């Protein structure tokens, strides 16, 4: 008995210790710092209570970052989920007839996920260059007005969202494909007998309900990724021009690592952490109750 306990401890102990030391402890420190005005490298810090949180939700800049993140997510989440589903349905449909083409297309759609986003951001920056970029050349060739994709304050957030969608579609496609292949063919046979013979009715009566758990998972993952948007902002716009593409995680980085305001950055982290925790809790609660058919 004791020997078994020792073995268990030996197996699980080191990893648990590492998790406590390197994850739980730092998180606890961040929670404490969030209530101080600590500056990186400063010898002391003052306890400021909820002041940091007031600044995040009360100041123009803090609210701007929150709203930008919400707008970005509102564009990216539905678009990349729906597009991912459409692509998956199309590829699933042609798998039997044209397996080669389907495999190639699958790889193509998945490439943005596998590629490093920072490197891809540089490529996008070239495409979106106002005078040298391919995008504006095409637009001019079509007789439309070239745009300042990344430096127009009204447009920049949507340009970044377009890149976010481009990145998300491939990932969502793979998840939906897995979900589709898990649907038993017998269900379609049963639907045919019941009179659902064609496209839409088969989708609505069988495919969509059976994809429920997958869809929920995809939405949650996409949402978490959209809230976390950082790389494209940091490499392409630095949150600018004039904070027009400042998002919550970029603000966190800016305050903590550029302005050295560790206390305020910790407060942003705490809020962000709470939001993600809520999202995960929601997922668990819904998955357990609603979307599984047993």
């Amino acid at each position, binding site marked *: 008995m004791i020997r078994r306990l020792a073995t268990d401890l030996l197996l699980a102990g080191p990893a648990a210790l590492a998790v406590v030391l390197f994850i739980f402890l730092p998180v606890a420190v961040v929670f404490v710092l969030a209530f101080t005005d600590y500056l990186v490298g400063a010898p002391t810090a003052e306890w400021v209570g909820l002041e940091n949180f007031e600044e995040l939700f009360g100041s123009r800049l803090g609210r701007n970052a929150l709203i930008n993140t919400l707008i970005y997510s509102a564009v990216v989440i539905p678009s990349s989920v729906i597009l991912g589903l459409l692509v998956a349905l199309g590829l699933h449909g042609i798998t039997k007839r044209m397996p080669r083409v389907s495999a190639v297309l699958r790889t193509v759609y998945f490439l943005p996920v596998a590629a490093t986003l920072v490197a891809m951001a540089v490529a996008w920056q070239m495409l979106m260059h*106002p005078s*040298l970029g391919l995008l504006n050349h095409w637009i001019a060739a079509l007789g439309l007005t*070239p745009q*300042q994709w990344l*430096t127009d304050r009204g447009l920049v957030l949507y340009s970044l969202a377009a890149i976010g969608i481009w990145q998300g579609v491939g990932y969502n496609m793979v998840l939906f494909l897995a979900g589709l292949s898990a649907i038993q063919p017998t269900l379609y046979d049963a639907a045919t007998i019941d009179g659902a013979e064609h496209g839409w009715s088969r989708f609505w009566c069988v495919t969509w309900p059976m994809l429920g758990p997958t869809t929920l998972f995809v939405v949650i993952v996409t949402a978490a990724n959209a809230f976390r948007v950082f790389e494209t902002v940091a490499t392409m716009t630095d949150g600018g021009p004039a904070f027009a593409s400042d998002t919550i995680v970029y603000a966190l980085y800016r305050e903590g690592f*550029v302005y050295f305001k560790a206390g305020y950055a910790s407060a942003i982290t705490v809020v962000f952490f709470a939001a993600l925790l809520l999202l995960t809790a929601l997922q668990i609660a819904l998955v357990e109750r609603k979307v599984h058919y047993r």
Partner: protein
Amino acid sequence: MKRLLLTAGLVLAAGSAAAETEIRVHYAIPTIWAETQEALAEAFMEANPDITITIDGPAEGYAEGVQRLLRESVAGTAPDVAYVGLNRWRILEDRGLTQPLDGFMPEDPAAAGYTPALLSLGQFEDTQHSLGTSASTLVMYVNPDLVEQAGGSMDDFPTTFDGIIELAAAIDALGDTIEGVWIHRHDWRFQSLLGSHGGRPMTADESDITFDDDAGLSAAALYQRFASEGGMSSMSQDDARQAFPAGTLGIMFESSSLLTRFVEGAGDGFDVTVRALPVVADDPSTVYFPTGGSGIVLLTDDAERQQAAWDYIAFVTGPEGQRIIVENTGYAPANSIVLDDEAYLGAYYAANENARVAHSQVAQYAGPWYAYPGAEGVAVTDLIAAALVEVTEGADVEGTISTLADDLRDRLDMQ
């Protein structure tokens, strides 16, 4: 790197009897500095066999470098000396990490090449916290081909902002993909235009913001005029830095440190030409151009190491070290002897007329890159940039700049 290891190894072997002091050096931006740092360390150790220079792995940029120095100082593993951005040593000074250099300075700094203008780059409240190691100011990069197509001439190139805006408009009219003029909407560029008008961003004791005076308003109004009259677009910095060497931008206000990069980028396309920034103030003695680049700070508090570290600092800021830095990086020197004495860089300048223009502007008008004090000091520079974006897009200059000034006073606790 291999060469560095080799020299370090040789010095260790040769100097094991004599080498007593090891000085650790931190620097940033290896793409510009890596070879220069090796050359400096090598030359210094040759002249001082009893001191060994160890170079830390470089930081990617100045911002990251300061972060690392702060972390290392918390952990007690900070290097002995560090090269930091000229606008960033105040972050270290603010936390009491820099050791004053006054006790080490020569009796007559000017005779050693440290002119008052150059010393001002590292001074705060009459204490010398840093010495400049490389300098750059805002200059105009011109594409002579576009100027001539637009009916201008390089011999008769405008020396006033009015003339430049007129020329820029003519260049801009050449075609849809041709831009006339561009300047980054950024704290340092704004301070440069302000200095050209004889203005200052703050009072000398840093108790109040002063860029909402006439000089500041005209400087900000230039941004608006560049856009409304000169046709300046809202290109980002990266966009503009690609557009100028590609030959689609006529006049670009940029740091003189980008000269080598632009000349390489333009290749055979056109002859990149540098012109000095126009001076607006009636009294040239009030003019200053905030100086970018790097300065060196002393971090160790151990008396013996301090002396050895000072020997290194004196070497790299002295004429010999400065010659190495100028020849390798293209930055302007931060020691007047190398500029005055032909023996050091005479041949270099004879071959680089553009560098001569840029570097003599530094020698004439170098001034500190004002860093705003306190916890919000870095944060407010982004507010300045945001206000300049608004002004460029047509917002009322006086209203925007005075709101900005009040906002800064509030955040910097100046009221």
